[in-house]
C-alpha cells in the first residue's frame, strides 16, 4: 500500500535523487535506475513547490511547514495544508522524499 503524507510526519529528500538549483530552477534528477540520466525524465518544482521542498529538512513536520508558509502566502490554513500534503504525496509516490522515523 502506498504511504500517504501526514501533517504530523517529518520528511527529507531521499538518497535516490540529486536536487540542484540550475539557472533559477530546482532540478531533480532521479537516480532510481542507478544512473543520473540527462536523457531520461527529470523533474522541476515551481516556486511554491520550491518553498515546500527547501523546508523538507528532516526536522520540521508538514504541519509546522504549513504554518511557516502561512506567513508568506495567502490562503486559509486548510488550503495551505492541503497543498503541502498534495505535493508531498506526489514526491513520496516518486520516491523523492522519505519519512523520518
Amino acid at each position: 500500500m502506498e504511504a500517504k503524507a501526514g501533517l504530523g510526519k517529518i520528511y527529507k529528500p531521499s538518497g535516490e535523487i540529486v536536487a540542484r538549483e540550475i539557472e533559477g530552477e530546482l532540478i531533480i534528477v532521479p537516480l532510481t535506475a542507478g544512473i543520473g540520466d540527462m536523457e531520461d525524465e527529470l523533474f522541476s518544482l515551481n516556486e511554491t513547490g520550491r518553498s515546500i521542498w527547501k523546508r523538507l529538512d528532516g526536522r520540521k513536520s508538514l504541519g509546522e511547514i504549513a504554518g511557516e508558509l502561512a506567513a508568506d502566502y495567502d490562503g486559509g490554513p486548510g488550503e495551505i495544508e492541503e497543498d503541502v500534503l498534495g505535493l508531498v504525496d506526489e514526491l513520496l509516490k516518486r520516491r523523492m522524499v522519505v519519512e523520518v522515523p
Partner: protein
Amino acid sequence: MRSPEGKPSLCARSGRELLLSGDSLIGLMAEVMAEGVPFRFRVAGYSMSPFIRDGDVITVLPKGGRRLRRGDVVAYVRPVNGRPAVHRIVGRISAGFVLKGDHESTADFHVAESGILGVVDRVERNGRRVRLGLGLGRRLIAGLSAWGFITWAFRVFGRKRGLSGQGPVS
C-alpha cells in the same frame, strides 16, 4: 496557497530540453557521481571526432579509486577556462595529466587529478553503442592523437568524404 505561480507542482522535464551552462553541468555531474552512480548526457562539439561526435550520448563513471591510464577518455574541468570537456589522456606528468581532444591540435597540460570528474565508459550514437576509441586500442589512439595523426588523417580522409567543414569546437 495563492501565488502568481499557482499551486505547488512537480513537473516532468525532458533532460534534452535543459540548456545547461558549463558550471551547471560540472556541478550536476559532480553531485550525481558523488553518490557513486554514473552520469549520462549528450555532448556537443567535434573535439573528439571521429570517436565521439557532436550529439553522441556518453556515460561517465565516477573516478573512485580507479587508476587513470593513458588512452582513457575522461570528463574534466579545463584549467584554461573552467569549462567542462571530454578528452583523452595522452600523457602523464608530475603535475597531473596531459589531455587532448583527438581532433584538436593542442593539448591541455597540467590537469590535476582533482580536476578529472570521471571516465567515459560508453558512447552511443543514434541509439547504438560505439566501441571504437574506448577499447583495447585506446593507448594506440592516444599515441596517434598526441602526434596529431588523427587530426591529419581526419583532414585528409574526411575531405574526401565531405567532412572537412567540421572543425574542432573547444
